């Protein structure tokens, strides 16, 4: 059963040191800033963070990195014009990095959520990112064997949730959210507002409530701004 919170600190309670945390968003679209800020206050450390990018500017994921809480980043595109926090940590050897092609990153999390043990993927064959990986030729095409990425926690941003935990997203802010929601033991979604059960069209629900453990309703906070 999904619990609805209005206090971000309550929404992230209990995240353990050493957790693997899947963080949604592509750039800032769909980035769960409220939950990340709460995670910084919560204090969990020695984290492995899985996210497409490695933080922008000095806020959100970048602030989590700056606070020294992240042992390892798994992402497709850490280097950005404003990724100076990550860049500094990486260059000074203070953070591990695993670079994964963006589609393989998504598919590995999908595999975790879908109970697939591993899959043969054509992406990256013959490149440095396939080094050391098992390969196999199938139907004349080379593939690398890729394993699931599971999260202890997923922090995602959605548009609207209902009280049962069903979620809809908005435009390209959907990105990694629906995949990460399936791949973590504990999925926490921040939404702009929460509607009563029955308030979402069942045909349009993108993340069914079974994947959502906690919802942070931002409407009170955002309404105050």
């Amino acid at each position, binding site marked *: 059963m999904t619990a609805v919170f209005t206090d971000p600190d309550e929404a992230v309670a209990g995240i353990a040191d050493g957790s693997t945390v899947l963080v949604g968003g592509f750039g800032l679209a769909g980035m769960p800033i409220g939950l990340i800020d709460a995670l910084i206050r919560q204090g969990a450390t020695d984290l492995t963070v899985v996210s497409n990018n490695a933080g922008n500017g000095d806020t959100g994921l970048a602030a989590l990195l700056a606070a020294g809480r992240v042992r390892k980043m798994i992402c497709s595109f850490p280097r950005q014009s404003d990724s100076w926090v990550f860049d500094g940590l990486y260059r000074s050897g203070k953070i591990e990095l695993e670079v994964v092609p963006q589609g393989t990153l998504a598919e590995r999390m999908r595999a975790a959520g879908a*109970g697939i043990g591993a899959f043969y993927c054509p992406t990256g064959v013959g490149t440095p990112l396939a080094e050391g990986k098992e390969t196999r030729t199938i139907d004349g095409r080379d593939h690398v064997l890729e394993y699931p990425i599971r999260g202890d926690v997923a922090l995602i941003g959605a548009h609207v949730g209902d009280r*049962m935990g069903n979620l809809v997203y908005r435009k390209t802010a959907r990105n990694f959210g629906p995949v990460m929601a399936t791949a973590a033991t504990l999925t926490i979604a921040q939404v702009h507002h929460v509607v009563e059960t029955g308030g979402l069209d069942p045909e349009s629900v993108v993340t069914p409530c079974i994947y959502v453990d906690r919802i942070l309703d931002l409407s009170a906070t955002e309404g105050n701004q």
Partner: protein
Amino acid sequence: MSTVEHLDRGPLARDELAARVARDIPPGSFVNLGIGQPTMVADHLPAASGVVLHTENGMLGMGPAAHGDEIDPDLINAGKFPVTELPGASYFHHADSFAMMRGGHLDVCVLGAFQVSGRGDLANWHTGAPDAIPAVGGAMDLATGAKQVFVMMTLFAKDGTPKLVPECTYPLTGLACVSRLYTDRAVFHIGPEGVTVAETYGTSVAELASRLEVPLRTLDATEGTNRRAS
């Protein structure tokens, strides 16, 4: 908790068995009820339990059977009978539906069975008869994917042979997947330690032990551990 022997009554009727299963489904669970007898469990889940039903043909939040004007050919359950939609429902395609099952997101599935072994192996899709046309549907996916697999069946076949067996003789559906076995004569917990009798109906653990070839344990309240039945 210790094993309870209900000796003052007969075996459970089908409807009582469905009610007994329903009692063990935790509130708020996501549950898939297999085709046939398991469907009856839904009638015994109080609305306040917050149990959400999944049907593998692409829906969470399935409601009761549809009748009369409610019948919609686009809204059916896995048994292809018309059903209804509850508030908070969602629809998804088959790959997403089985990803949900295989990925371990369903708390409980309830299945029928031809045989269950003492290790929790399940046989429920094929009699193995030479002229039978094999048809598996979603049985293997459910047996493999759900966090807990409950089976409901009669404990003995019509000819009196036990359906809880040391080794399944029918073709298997899944290995070591059944965690609870609900029958008309007894409720069993199945795990790495073996088969434990939780409750009996119109029979005793000793009588069951004499009719089954599977070693039986009992729940022991004092020690908090299971004990091998005599």
